């Protein structure tokens, strides 16, 4: 069997450079692995574990310091094979904008084969075929910069396919896409693998994406930490050690089995139906121990609308072209003090436009936004004199906020907004230090250059810059994007702690599981209009409602609902509580409901 064979490879960035005095940590160390032709492999690992480096080595964009890489029998160290190997492997990278070379769609698709010297008419045939394969043929004469994120990534695949590669590497290619575009994108790539026998390698932080693969390789600090089929990995490997998590459905299943005093095996994880079957079996086992001190389920949150209203959006319309089309229309939304409000919707639905209005960066075409920072005070976005105070009351953290850092030190950057507020030096210092502490940055980080920090730290520094202004309402656009599973959890823990400290939080997200698990209420936007604003329980508890609105159920809810239906088949008397979206919490609720029903039976 032909393989991509990585043999004892070590690679250090900048090792050929002059800076020998401070040898950097190797990005990959004594790594060996094999990937079979035509297989579908996921490479997982925390940020900085060497995943992207591996992709670059396979495509000979970098060359290993030591060790050998053989791609289908061709050694990458052999200079005469260099172009042959590179021609046969193609990459799609994370940021759609930074891999488009051509101005027009078809010109960009042609870029690769043009470099290979493919002549007309074959060139034209390849380009057209590639565009048809991924479904962007209709867009061929459009300007590439005007496409949506999902379309741009499809364009990137088309550009790769036009080179007729044998290996296609997706390097976090779905990280910036919403769930629907993500599914479409992966379907295209998987389809090409089936039809053209491509070897597909996907580097990802998304565990449900990894579940789709035939094999998973986990990297940790440049070394191979584990390898196997998805069921084996998710059954046997302690993923937390590598900054990873199990997929939510599997986390839920494991907690349920643990409560029942059973364990799951690799075989149970080979399919969702099989997993449910096994769980039903565990729960209907007569010998199931009836644990008297079953952990109480967490309390339901109090009714949000009894709290004080802190912001009210009234009949808001917004247009970028003077009223011909509206990016958002007729938006009415109340925000209550101390809540976490989630705003969900597909890319381009108007989420970012809406939040830009919340702190008066954009002016409404019509309508009003009122903010009540304290009792008896009303700020209006249409009143010019209120604008400055609104911006201080509503802090806005855009997506990838780390790209806005500009000062020489983290401390100065955090203080930027405070200087603009003309606060005294002492006040600035006090606030900056406190804000840094709130986001979990060590004190010595304050003196450092923000551009030297790791990605996660940069983002924290940027958030601190907004927090230091002591906003009463903090709006975050996709705060966890690009972070690995552990990083995401930390980010949401941070958000939760800010809420505990009294800040009202508004989060924009397209991850339904996270929105459902962390938000008190969820506001669904579609085509610029608010479809519904509800608690996650009320929203996702009703499958028909979500279908009508056109939003996805969280993965945990999909799995749990199917399981509940299965349980009812054997135990019709079970009454389930309202759904929860934290996998462990939901498992406890399901388990408790089953136990209660059985106790009743005994009596």
């Amino acid at each position, binding site marked *: 069997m032909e393989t991509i064979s990585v043999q004892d490879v070590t690679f250090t960035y900048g090792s050929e450079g002059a800076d020998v005095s401070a040898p950097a940590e190797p990005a990959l160390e004594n790594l060996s692995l094999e990937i079979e032709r035509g297989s579908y492999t996921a490479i997982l690992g925390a940020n900085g574990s060497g995943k992207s480096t591996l992709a670059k080595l396979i495509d000979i964009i970098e060359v290993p310091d030591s060790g050998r890489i053989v791609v289908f029998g061709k050694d990458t160290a052999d200079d005469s094979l260099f172009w042959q190997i590179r021609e046969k492997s193609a990459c799609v990278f994370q940021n759609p904008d*930074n891999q488009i070379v051509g*101005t027009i769609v078809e010109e960009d698709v042609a870029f690769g084969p043009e470099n290979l010297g493919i002549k007309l008419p074959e060139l034209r045939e390849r380009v057209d075929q590639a565009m048809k394969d991924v479904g962007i043929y209709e867009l061929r004469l459009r300007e590439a910069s005007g496409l949506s994120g999902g379309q741009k990534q499809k364009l990137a695949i088309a550009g790769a396919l036009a080179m007729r590669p044998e290996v296609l590497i997706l390097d976090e290619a779905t990280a910036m896409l919403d769930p629907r575009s993500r599914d479409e994108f992966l379907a295209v790539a998987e389809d090409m693998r089936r039809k053209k026998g491509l070897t597909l390698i996907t580097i990802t932080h998304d565990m449900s994406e990894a579940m789709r693969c035939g094999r998973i390789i986990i990297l940790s600090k440049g070394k191979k930490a584990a390898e196997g089929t998805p069921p084996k990995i998710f059954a046997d490997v302690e993923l937390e050690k590598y900054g990873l998590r199990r997929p939510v459905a599997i986390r839920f299943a494991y907690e349920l089995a643990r409560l029942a005093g059973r364990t799951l095996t690799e075989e149970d994880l080979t399919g969702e139906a099989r997993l449910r079957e096994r769980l039903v079996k565990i729960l209907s086992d007569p010998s199931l121990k009836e644990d008297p001190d079953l952990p109480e389920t967490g309390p339901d949150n109090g009714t949000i609308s009894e709290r004080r209203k802190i912001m009210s959006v009234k009949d808001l319309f917004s247009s970028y072209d003077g009223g011909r089309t509206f990016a958002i229309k007729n938006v009415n939304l109340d925000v209550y003090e101390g809540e976490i409000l989630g705003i969900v919707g597909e890319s381009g639905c108007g989420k970012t436009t809406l939040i830009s209005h919340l702190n008066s960066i954009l002016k409404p075409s019509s309508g009003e936004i009122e903010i009540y920072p304290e009792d008896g005070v009303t700020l209006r976005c249409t009143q010019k004199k209120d604008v400055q105070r609104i911006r201080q009351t509503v802090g*806005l953290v855009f997506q990838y906020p780390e790209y806005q850092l500009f000062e020489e030190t983290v401390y100065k950057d955090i203080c*930027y*907004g405070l200087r603009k*507020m003309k606060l005294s030096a002492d006040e600035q210092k006090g606030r900056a230090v406190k804000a840094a502490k709130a986001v979990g940055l060590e004190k010595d980080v304050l003196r450092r250059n923000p551009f030297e920090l790791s990605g996660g730290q940069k983002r924290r520094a940027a958030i601190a810059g907004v927090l230091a202004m002591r906003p009463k309402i903090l709006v975050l656009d996709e705060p966890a994007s690009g972070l690995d599973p552990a990083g995401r959890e930390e980010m949401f823990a941070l958000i939760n702690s800010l809420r505990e400290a009294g800040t009202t939080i508004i989060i924009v997200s397209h991850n339904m599981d996270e929105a459902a698990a962390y938000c008190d209420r969820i506001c669904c936007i579609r085509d610029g209009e608010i479809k519904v604003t509800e608690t996650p329980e009320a929203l996702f508890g009703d499958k028909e409602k979500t279908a009508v609105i056109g939003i996805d159920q969280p993965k945990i809810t999909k799995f749990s609902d199917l399981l509940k239906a299965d349980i009812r088949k054997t135990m019709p008397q079970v009454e389930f509580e309202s759904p929860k979206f934290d996998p462990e919490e939901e498992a406890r609720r399901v388990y408790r409901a089953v136990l209660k029903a059985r106790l009743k039976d005994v009596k």
Partner: protein
Amino acid sequence: MLSDISLGRYYKADSILHRTDPRIKTLLYVVYLVVIFIVKTPAAIGALAGVILIQIFMAKVRPSVIWQTVRPVIPLSLFILILNLLTIKQGNVLLQWKFITVTDYGVSRAVLMAVRLVFLILSTSIMLTLTTTPLKISDALESLFAPLRIIKVPVHEMAMMMSIALRFIPTLIEETDKIMKAQVSRGADYDTGSFLNRVKGYITVLIPLFVSSFRRAEELAVAMDARCYRGGDGRTKLNPLKLTGNDLLVGWFLFACATGLVVMDLTLR
């Protein structure tokens, strides 16, 4: 905030001039540049205006779009007009009031200068920017300057750089807009205050923009590497430039007009 910037805007249409080979258009553009600066006599200028009208007709560009391209230079054109009127002292005096002297030579000179500027803008936009996509312009330059490769001028690389720069203009405008919004939400103010303060304010945009441009450049270089880019040698083109009979016809026709204008001007002097 920055959406109204239109750098070398392309006007989508299907016209004779749109279809003409960009190399012909570039050459014609240079020819007309020379013509605009040669002709002096009123009759020839009138004729030139007529030829430009024919070009507009050939480009099928709406009059409102033509007006939009010309409008921004009208203040400058008027300024040049007035400046010339007041500073030129040769010729017969037409008007004398306090320190203001206007002569007949001054009037004709001033009108000529102002009209030249308008013609210049019109011919640039009709011959090139409105009717030719940026990529085609850079293709044309690559092809026209190809002979310079003999003396080791990196013609292909320069054309590639130009087309990538053009490709990234919308991306960077979008990015600038995002950064500005983020800084505004932290209290930055780009619209008020003294000139110096405003310039200083832009540092908060420029530094992140530079950093991100470098990051983009690096990622783009890797992506181009991955797609086997290795310079211009042996590279083929999806839409190679091809001269057709129509292109030559348009070329000779407009060239003949230009020659006619110059001959007419020289005989009338």
